[in-house]
């Protein structure tokens, strides 16, 4: 139950500051949490945004006469293609649920690697691969999540082998060797990790790495750098897997289990789903309460899109 008080001047000030001068990282994190947890807060935030936009438009009207560069027009039209599938269910659009396929594909589109060369661009040969990936997502039946009144049971899938594989493992270990061996196998699924620029929190902006998964043996490993250390008493990382063959409304994505990061630097985590992931197309990490959740409401922080 949200504790947002729309009359709280401090919370209102946070919103007013956000739409005028921006917030410090700490204040932004506070606002992000508030917006995530409260529909009323989101509504009020939008009202502040609309106010600022209306005033901005009115005050600068004399300058708003710069036509769009012709070179951008076709790109912008093309950018709508992934979003012209089935319209969002109204309940889903109005009240963010746990992550829909639409959110995963948006995160995929906003997927950003720390390597400048790998940054997504809507133009050029690289874009074709991305369009194919996004088109593949669109080709799936649109998965609508259950409304808030219905709790969806999603099986906990992955148990990260914590006893023998501490959460923070230096790269030069057996797991690292297994990672490399799996990478060399044919027909494995490989995806680069990257920060979700569309909603991910700033502290994950330097994350990168790779995940490799073998659909035949249902084993995999993910190697990441730049993940912030977490306090397991407050929050844990949770892995989610989008399976292209799972269009069942009750299992829109697979819970990949929870893990901790106890040291900065490169970490490697084993992945062994209990439910078969036939055709993983997207992997994502969220931050959840200790022990993880059945229904995630946090933002997709880091995303790996199968290429």
């Amino acid at each position, binding site marked *: 139950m949200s504790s947002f008080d*729309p*009359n709280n*001047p401090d919370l*209102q*000030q946070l919103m*007013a*500051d956000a*739409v*005028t*001068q*921006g*917030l410090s990282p700490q204040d932004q994190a506070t606002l992000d949490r508030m917006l995530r947890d409260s529909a009323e807060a989101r509504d*009020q935030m*939008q*009202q*502040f*945004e*609309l*106010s*600022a*936009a*209306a*005033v*901005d*438009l*009115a*005050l*600068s*009207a004399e*300058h*708003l*006469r*710069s*036509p*769009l*560069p*012709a070179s*951008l*027009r076709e*790109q*912008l*039209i093309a*950018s*709508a293609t*992934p*979003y*012209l599938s*089935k*319209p*969002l269910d*109204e309940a889903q*659009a*109005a009240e963010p649920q746990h992550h829909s396929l639409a959110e995963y594909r*948006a995160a995929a*589109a*906003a997927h950003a690697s720390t390597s400048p060369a790998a940054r997504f661009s*809507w133009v050029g040969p690289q874009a074709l691969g991305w369009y194919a990936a996004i088109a593949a997502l669109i080709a799936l039946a649109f998965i609508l999540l259950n409304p808030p009144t219905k709790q969806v049971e999603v099986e906990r899938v992955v148990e990260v082998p914590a006893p023998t594989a501490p959460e923070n493992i230096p790269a030069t270990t057996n797991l690292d060797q297994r990672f490399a061996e799996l990478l060399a196998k044919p027909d494995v699924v490989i995806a680069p990790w990257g920060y979700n620029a*569309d909603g991910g929190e*700033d502290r994950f*902006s330097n994350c990168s790495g790779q995940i490799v998964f073998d659909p035949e043996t249902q084993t995999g490993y993910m190697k990441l750098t730049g993940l912030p250390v977490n306090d397991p008493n407050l929050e844990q990382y949770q892995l989610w897997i989008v399976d292209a063959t799972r269009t069942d409304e009750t299992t829109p994505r697979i819970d990949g289990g929870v893990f901790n990061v106890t040291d900065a630097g490169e970490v490697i985590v084993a992945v062994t789903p209990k439910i078969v992931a036939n055709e993983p197309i997207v992997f994502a990490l969220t931050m959840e309460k200790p022990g993880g959740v059945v229904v995630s409401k946090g933002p997709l922080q880091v995303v790996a899109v199968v290429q």
Partner: protein
Amino acid sequence: MSQTASLLHRVAAGETNAVAAVVDQYGGLVWSIARKYFRDRAEAEDAVQDSFIALWKNAGRFDPDTASETTYVAMIARRRMIDRLRKMGRRISAQPLDAAPEPDSTTKGESETPLEREEEVRRVLRVVESLDPPQPELIKQSLMEGLTHAEIAEQTGLPLGTVKTHIRRGLIKVRQALGVSTSNR
């Protein structure tokens, strides 16, 4: 969907021909907003693309009872610009555009009918000017000149907290006056 439905709703309904109409209708607006925040053309182009993706995602959420379609588009664009600046570690500073026309500009990009836009602009300006002093001036300094609240406080001699409170209350009153109520403090 009816042709009288808003462009955004038609996009949300999956009408592909509405997409080009949205780009032609609001492309200039979003481009202009981007150039205010990003002087570098390449950065502005990225910001425009980012904004339109956000617009496609949020097209179905447009509520004509809360704002005009132009204001909604501007809100989405400002939100993405501010978010980009924040993630780039740069301050939010909007500067007025130079008068020089952009090369290779489209001949399209006309805004809503001039009469509708002018009426809306006049209405908003009336609301801003009707605010209790010094709220109008502080809001202009913040949104038009891109000054931080601390900079405004330094320029005006007002305490920082007072500046913040005035701007907050001013924005709330603007919303109330434009038709959608919000908490009144």
